[in-house]
């Protein structure tokens, strides 16, 4: 055949195969579309059911919180910021890996990202939803939450734009909007595929409306590709700025252990670290349930492990740098704070953090462990536990022992702190289960685009 794909040697010359199993365009469509079209697996009902129960539990506790006030939490006088801020920072951080994969790896032309970017972006959106929950409810009188926005009001007052807490409002809401738009733009051509495959009139109409009448014409692709590139270019500085701004919530205060310039890069690295761990956890489960080993290959997992090794060491460097500066500054409050972190009443939390975030990822130096799926599954969960403890250590140790020893107190959570946090997992997984059931969770368009036969240069002319 004149136009047959050149021999595999030539294809290799254009870059290694990214997707396994000699896929054709049609097999990609089939494999991914049928997940949303075929019957629901039993395991899905189990997972979804548990998630919804957790969600309901969390929301009933939030109801009680709104009724009763933040007194039901474990907050005390020096520790006025408890799990709510810890959970907020943790969830926002998890979201950042989705943007890193969809935007930053796109700008760096890392074409292997096509298998994982769709569900990583979805994870971003759901994680930011969970994150946004906590600042909203932690104000206690939730009906006053509109104070956070510059809305004209009866008091003729405006919010203080020099407060990092207000920067947060703008950064996180912009971030959520941009992530949602980016995700939807990516979905449009895939929804058109589902539209064209739909059997029932109802499904055809729903998919038709949400795919906006996409025709896949190059006059459309031309603007579409540029819009995608521009969104990636906008999301990249945005994601770096969002977690930098989150870190200024701490860094602009005068509390020892918070008042440091290392916070923005340190928080960004930690965010990417924990986010990749969450992408891995979800990816390993999803590829197992839906048999997608050919799309999310061991090479994808290995590359993500290498990114975790890198960001894990950046985080580890930040921990040691903080210690060094605490000593080198000669500031006795600063020195005390860090000695107190490592050897004080929260030493158990500190060393959990060090073990999970610094020691565990070192295993990824070894190819055997980097490509061992049960091992990496456990490691990613440990990393996310460690990253939660990182935020807990920062918040609790600095607040519980500040300048005046007479005001020191030990902070411990109540059942409502724990319950609402677990409830946020319910929200996250409910959304995630709905997403993997009803929408294509791997981008068909982008996967087809990286197959060797998609490039006109790979054909004999």
């Amino acid at each position, binding site marked *: 055949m004149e136009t047959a794909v050149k021999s595999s040697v030539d294809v290799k010359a254009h870059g290694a195969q990214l997707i396994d199993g000699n896929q054709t365009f049609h097999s990609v469509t089939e494999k991914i579309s049928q997940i949303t079209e075929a019957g629901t697996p039993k395991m899905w009902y189990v997972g979804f059911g548990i998630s919804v129960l957790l969600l309901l539990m969390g929301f009933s506790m939030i109801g009680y919180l709104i009724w009763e006030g933040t007194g039901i939490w474990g907050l005390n006088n020096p520790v006025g910021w408890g799990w709510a801020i810890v959970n907020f920072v943790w969830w926002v951080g998890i979201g950042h890996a989705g943007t890193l994969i969809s935007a930053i790896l796109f700008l760096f032309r890392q074409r292997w990202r096509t298998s994982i970017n769709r569900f990583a972006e979805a994870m971003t959106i759901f994680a930011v939803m969970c994150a946004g929950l906590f600042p909203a409810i932690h104000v206690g009188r939730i009906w006053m939450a509109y104070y956070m926005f510059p809305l004209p009001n009866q008091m003729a007052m*405006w919010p203080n734009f020099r407060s990092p807490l207000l920067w947060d409002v703008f950064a996180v809401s912009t971030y959520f909007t941009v992530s949602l738009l980016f995700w939807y733009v990516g979905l449009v051509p895939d929804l058109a595929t589902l539209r064209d495959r739909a059997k029932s009139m109802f499904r055809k109409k729903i998919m038709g409306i949400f795919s906006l009448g996409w025709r896949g014409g190059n006059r459309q*692709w031309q603007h579409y590709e540029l819009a995608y590139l521009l969104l990636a270019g906008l999301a990249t500085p945005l994601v770096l700025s969002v977690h930098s701004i989150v870190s200024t919530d701490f860094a602009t205060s005068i509390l020892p252990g918070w008042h440091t310039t290392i916070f923005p890069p340190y928080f960004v690295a930690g965010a990417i670290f924990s986010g990749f761990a969450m992408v891995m956890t979800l990816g390993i489960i999803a590829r197992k349930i839906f048999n997608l080993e050919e799309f999310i290959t061991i090479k994808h997992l290995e590359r993500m492990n290498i990114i975790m090794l890198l960001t894990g060491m950046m985080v580890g460097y930040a921990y040691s740098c903080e210690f060094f500066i605490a000593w080198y500054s000669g500031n006795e409050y600063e020195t005390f704070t860090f000695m107190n972190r490592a050897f004080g009443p929260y030493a158990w939390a500190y060393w959990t953090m060090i073990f999970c975030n610094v020691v565990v990822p070192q295993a990824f130096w070894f190819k055997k462990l980097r490509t061992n799926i049960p091992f990496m599954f456990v490691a990613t969960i440990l990393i996310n536990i460690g990253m939660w403890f990182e935020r807990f250590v920062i918040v609790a140790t600095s607040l519980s022992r500040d300048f005046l020893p007479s005001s020191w107190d030990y902070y411990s959570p109540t059942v409502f702190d724990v319950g609402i946090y677990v409830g946020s997992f319910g929200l996250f997984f409910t959304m995630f289960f709905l997403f993997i059931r009803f929408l294509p969770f791997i981008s068909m368009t982008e996967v087809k685009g990286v197959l060797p036969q998609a490039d006109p240069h790979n054909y004999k002319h």
Partner: protein
Amino acid sequence: MAKKENKVYGILAEFDNPAELLHAAEKVRDAGYKRFDCHSPFPIHGMDEAMGLKRSPLGWMVGFMGMTGAGLGTLMQWWMNAVDYKLVISGKPFFSYPAYVPVTFGVGVLFAALTAVFGMFHLNRLPMLHHPVYYSDNFGKVTDDGFMISVEATDPKFDAQATKSFFESIGAKSVELLQPE
């Protein structure tokens, strides 16, 4: 009525693979057609040149709106904190601009991103839930593994018979007229 239903709205030709579509696009362009489009399940590298398309103006739109957003963001903060409701914070000047950078940046990115998405929808005339290509039963393949060229009847060079044989001569796998059934 009957006459109208037989009206031809265009032609749809199918090709084998991305490379064939690319070469066919060059030939259609060289033949002088203007209102044609190349449909594929994913964007094909080099197709813009093959079709002779001009660069998308979206970048300028996004840049302009991003700047506008950043400008409005600054203006809002200045007016709210330095004019309408003067807030003294640590004895600093009312308009201490470094503190206003994060929100300025955020609003700028928000405007730019909304423009990128809705500007793209506008340039692509989306949503558009109907189009002559949907008269073809075959067109659904485009979102799966089909590679097709459509020419609209409004093209000055369009002639149902001549265009059809033109596509057959450049190696189309199948050619069909787009008309209501």
